[in-house]
């Protein structure tokens, strides 16, 4: 067996398998009636994206995707969903013209994204090749860190401040009059 063709074949198989898993679970996020199953499908699609990162040798991104999104953010989502009575949500989102319109609209948006991705794929792969060329020279994580803390430091810090503002805002809202943690 030719070693290179074998590697290419496994790569292609892995890619299609992961892509199908990711897309099917992404679709079921909007098609599931029960919000809890939607959230779990979102987790599945995030894990799929992380695995796709691994096949592209972006190990650090894959790990961070797992730790931050699948491991922390979505756990909170699922936890909060479990605390609510979901029957009302099920009713609200499973019948009526409003919900069907939303569903059709989101499928349309998704299809648009897909078509856009295919149409502009040349553009994306061209950029990709350039970045991988720069990343290949050094250790990927190191390069990522250098980019974040040197070239894009301003944006990085602004995003951090934005997150802080959101967190403080959430606390302030919940403690203000009428909020869930209001003092009076």
């Amino acid at each position, binding site marked *: 067996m030719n*070693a290179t063709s074998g590697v290419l074949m496994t790569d292609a198989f892995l890619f299609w398998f992961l892509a199908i898993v990711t897309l099917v679970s992404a679709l079921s996020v909007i098609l599931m009636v029960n919000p*809890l199953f939607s959230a*779990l499908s979102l*987790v599945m699609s995030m*894990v799929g994206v*992380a695995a796709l990162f691994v096949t592209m040798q972006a*190990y*650090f991104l*894959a*790990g*961070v*995707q*797992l*730790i931050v999104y*699948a*491991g*922390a953010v979505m*756990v*909170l989502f*699922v*936890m909060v969903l*479990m*605390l609510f009575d979901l029957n009302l949500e099920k009713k609200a989102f499973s019948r009526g013209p409003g919900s069907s319109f939303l569903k059709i609209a989101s499928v349309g948006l998704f299809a648009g994204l897909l078509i856009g991705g295919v149409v502009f794929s040349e553009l994306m792969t061209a950029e990709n090749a350039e970045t991988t060329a720069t990343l290949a020279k050094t250790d*990927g*994580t190191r390069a990522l860190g250098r980019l974040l803390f040197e070239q894009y430091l301003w944006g990085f810090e602004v995003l951090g401040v934005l997150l802080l503002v959101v967190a403080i805002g959430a606390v302030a809202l919940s403690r203000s009059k009428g909020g869930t943690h209001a003092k009076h």
Partner: protein
Amino acid sequence: MGSDSLEISINVIKMILIFLMMVQAVPILVWLERRGSAFIQNRLGPNRVGPLGLVQLLADAVKFLQKEEFIPAKGIRVLYYAAPVIALVPATLAFLAIPIGAPMSLEAFELFGSEWGPYRFALQGYEVGVGIVFVLGVSSLAAYAVLLAGWGSGNKYSILGALRASSQMISYELALGLSIVGVILLYGSFNFSDMILAQQGPLAIKAFGRELVIGWLPNWGIFFQPLGAILFFAATFAESNRLPFDLPEGEAELVAGFHVEYGGFKMLLFFIGEYGHMMVASGLMATFYFGGYQVPFMSPDQVLAWVSTWAPGANSAAVISSLLHHVVFLVKIAVFLWIFIHVRWTLPRFRYDQLMDLGWKTMLPWALANTILTAIVIAVAAS
């Protein structure tokens, strides 16, 4: 995976063997836990079946396999069946990424009538460049097993246990992640093998361009990161839901928490998941702070050189030295596993508010302080 059929098959067999090793260690640990708890509480424990009660494990396994298949009436079938499997996956994936022995470099040799080129086999399931990030990422998924089990069982106790468990895991994951930033700064790498190789020989402290060597101590991470080591070990107790952090299954208030409705083999899978997490935590402790698979005071090359003096042939020397390192690693892991068991039968359970206070108000700030202090010290000492 490898460049030819022999290398690929050896790598696959290696993965399966390490997985089996992890699964097979569980009955032994259960036996150790029961005998150990009996020893601590001045009882005898299971001592009737076979020598020292060791065959009790086999009897238990048969019992688990023969239990009645059961699904709670209000449960959700898919989630109820998926949860035990999901409990097993993160621990397995994480354990396979930890190096459990020195890599063996084999010279070209002849087998089955053909030449096989020089190989280098790492004694771990697979090598991941950013090992720490991978292990943290994979084991952060363990919370889902608990959540799905709680929700899928359709039982109030289950869901209360699941909610407790997941909030506890999220809280302590922060302290866990921050406590090892010091280690990453110290070794300047995310890679387990790099970290282990940085802990060779006797303790050597490099600062201001000079080097201080302390001959009677090994060059282990614990001497550079004592606070980080303590925080990390405590956080792993919370991550694997062991006492004193086993509120998710607090018997007095929740019967058995998230696995109330589970029995038989599904229950056993949760068990394997929990012990798997203990093994991963012990392996990480050894790798980060206690020199990994290395023999204290000796580098892998020195061990290989010593083995070569009496072993027949270079390849057998490489194999023997790798296995020797593996045994050293097992001894180190066993010590930490025993500490896990000893702590479980020594300390009482925390109250829930105490648990959250400890995680958010004590361990997180200390881990942050450790990170900043380490960064400053490294920056100053390197100048």
